C-alpha cells in the first residue's frame, strides 16, 4: 500500500490505498470476489482511487480496441436484434429489469452507514449475528473459502485486542469499516486499506476506544506464526 498525502478536502479521506498493481488486477477482473469486495469498499471512500480505476478501465478499453477482431461464426446482428425485439415485447417481465442499476440505493436508514458494495452481502452492521472467536474478537463470514483458497469475513475487534501475529501464503486485504487498528506498517481508520502479501508478518491491534470493524479478504489461508496463533488457526478459518 502507499501512504499518500491527504488531499485538501473538508472530509477525512483514506490514507492507506491499494497499490496500482492491485487496482489493475481489480479493473482487469482477475481478482477473486472477496479481494474485489475489499477493493470496492475502499473505492467507496476514495475518489483518488476511483480516478485510478477509471484509468485502468480506459486502458482495458484501449486494449480491447486494439485486439484483432475474431470473425463471428454463429452470432449475428439479426439474431441479436431478434432477442432485443422479444425482450422489449409488451408483457415481457424482462423489460422491467431493463434499467435496474447494478447496485441499488440503501433500503433504509439502517443501511446508510454501510459502504454500497457491502450492502449486497449484509443488511446492516447492527443486525449481524457475530460469532465469538476469541476474547475480544468476533466474526461474521461473508464468503466461504473458495477452491482457490480465498475467503472474506468481517471481524469485530474490541479496543486493545491484538490479533495473533500472522504471515500470509498469499494476498490479504483489510479494509476498516469503523474504528481504528494499527500494525507495524501504520494506523488505519475507516476506508483505509492494508495490502499485505508474500512474506510479510503483521500483528494488527485495535487501538481506539471503540470496536474496530474490518473486512478481511484473503486469496490464500493465513499462517499464524505464534503458538497462540497456530492453536487458533483451525478455528479462525481465515
Amino acid at each position: 500500500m502507499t501512504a499518500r498525502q491527504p488531499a485538501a478536502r473538508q472530509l477525512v479521506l483514506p490514507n492507506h490505498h491499494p497499490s496500482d498493481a492491485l487496482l489493475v488486477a481489480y479493473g482487469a477482473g482477475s481478482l477473486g470476489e472477496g479481494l474485489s469486495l475489499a477493493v470496492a469498499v475502499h473505492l467507496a471512500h476514495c475518489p483518488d482511487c476511483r480516478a485510478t480505476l477509471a484509468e485502468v478501465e480506459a486502458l482495458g478499453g484501449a486494449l480491447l480496441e486494439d485486439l484483432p477482431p475474431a470473425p463471428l461464426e454463429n452470432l449475428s446482428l439479426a439474431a441479436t436484434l431478434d432477442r432485443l425485439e422479444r425482450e422489449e415485447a409488451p408483457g415481457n417481465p424482462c423489460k422491467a429489469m431493463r434499467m435496474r442499476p447494478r447496485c441499488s440505493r440503501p433500503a433504509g436508514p439502517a443501511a446508510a452507514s454501510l459502504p454500497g458494495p457491502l450492502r449486497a452481502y449484509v443488511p446492516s452492521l447492527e443486525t449481524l449475528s457475530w460469532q465469538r472467536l476469541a476474547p475480544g474478537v468476533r466474526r461474521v463470514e461473508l464468503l466461504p473459502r473458495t477452491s482457490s483458497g480465498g475467503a472474506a469475513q468481517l471481524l469485530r475487534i474490541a479496543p486493545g485486542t491484538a490479533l495473533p501475529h500472522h504471515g500470509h501464503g498469499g494476498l490479504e486485504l483489510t479494509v476498516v469499516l469503523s474504528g481504528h487498528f494499527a500494525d507495524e506498517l501504520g494506523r488505519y481508520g475507516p476506508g483505509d486499506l492494508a495490502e499485505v502479501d508474500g512474506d510479510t508478518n503483521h500483528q494488527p491491534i485495535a487501538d481506539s476506544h471503540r470496536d474496530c470493524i474490518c473486512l478481511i479478504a484473503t486469496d490464500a489461508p493465513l499462517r499464524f506464526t505464534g503458538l497462540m496463533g497456530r492453536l487458533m488457526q483451525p478455528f479462525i478459518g481465515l
Partner: protein
Amino acid sequence: MIAQLASLLTHAAGADRTPDPKRIGQAARVSANPAAADPAAARLAADQSADLVAVAAGDRAAFARLFAHFAPRVKAYMLKLGMPAQRAEDLAQDTMLSVWRKASLYDPAKAEAATWVFTIARNLRIDMLRRERHPEVSDDELQEHEDDRPRADEVLDGDRRARRLRGALASLTPEQAEVVQLSFFADLAHPAIAERLDVPLGTVKSRLRLAMAKIRKALGDDDR
C-alpha cells in the same frame, strides 16, 4: 490465439536476462500499434461515443455499427482469456444486449465507448465463469464525497483523451506492455505472472506502477 499467448509466455520467460529480439517484437505488439498516434483512431472514438448516445434514444442503425465493431472484439477478448468459441460468442451477444439496455447510463464526458464496453464484458465474464460477483461502487454511492466529479473545464474531451491514451500505450516499454497484457488477458494473479516471467513479484508490481504512471500522466491527472 492460445498458442499465440503460450508463445508470448515462452519467449517472455527469459525477461530481463537475454535481449531476445523475437520476444521484444512480440511483447511490443501492443505498443507498436499503428493506430497509436493516428487521428483516425480518435475520430473513431468520438463516433462510437455518439453512436452509444444514439442507442440510448433507440437508434438501431447506431447499434448495428457498434455491434459490427465491438462484438468481434469482445469475442477476441474472451478467446484470449481461454473461453471456448461458442461461449465467447454468447458472451459477445450478452455484452451487446447490455450495451443496448444500459446505453442511457453511458456518460460520454467520463469514458470512451470502448472503456464502457470493456467493463460490461469484464463483468459479464465474471458472472458467467465464476458465478461470482464483481463488487462495484456505483456513481451515487461515493461515501460522503458527493461532489468529487471533475469540473467541466477539467474533463478532457473524448478525442483528446483517446489520442493521449494511445500515445501512452505506445510509450510503454516492452516489459511494461507485457505485464499489462498478461494482467488483462491471461487471467492470472500477479504472483502467477511473476512466476511465468521468472521475475520477482515486486518487479511485476513496479512495472504495473510505472505503466499506470504513464497512463495517468497522459490522461492529465499527474498531480497525484
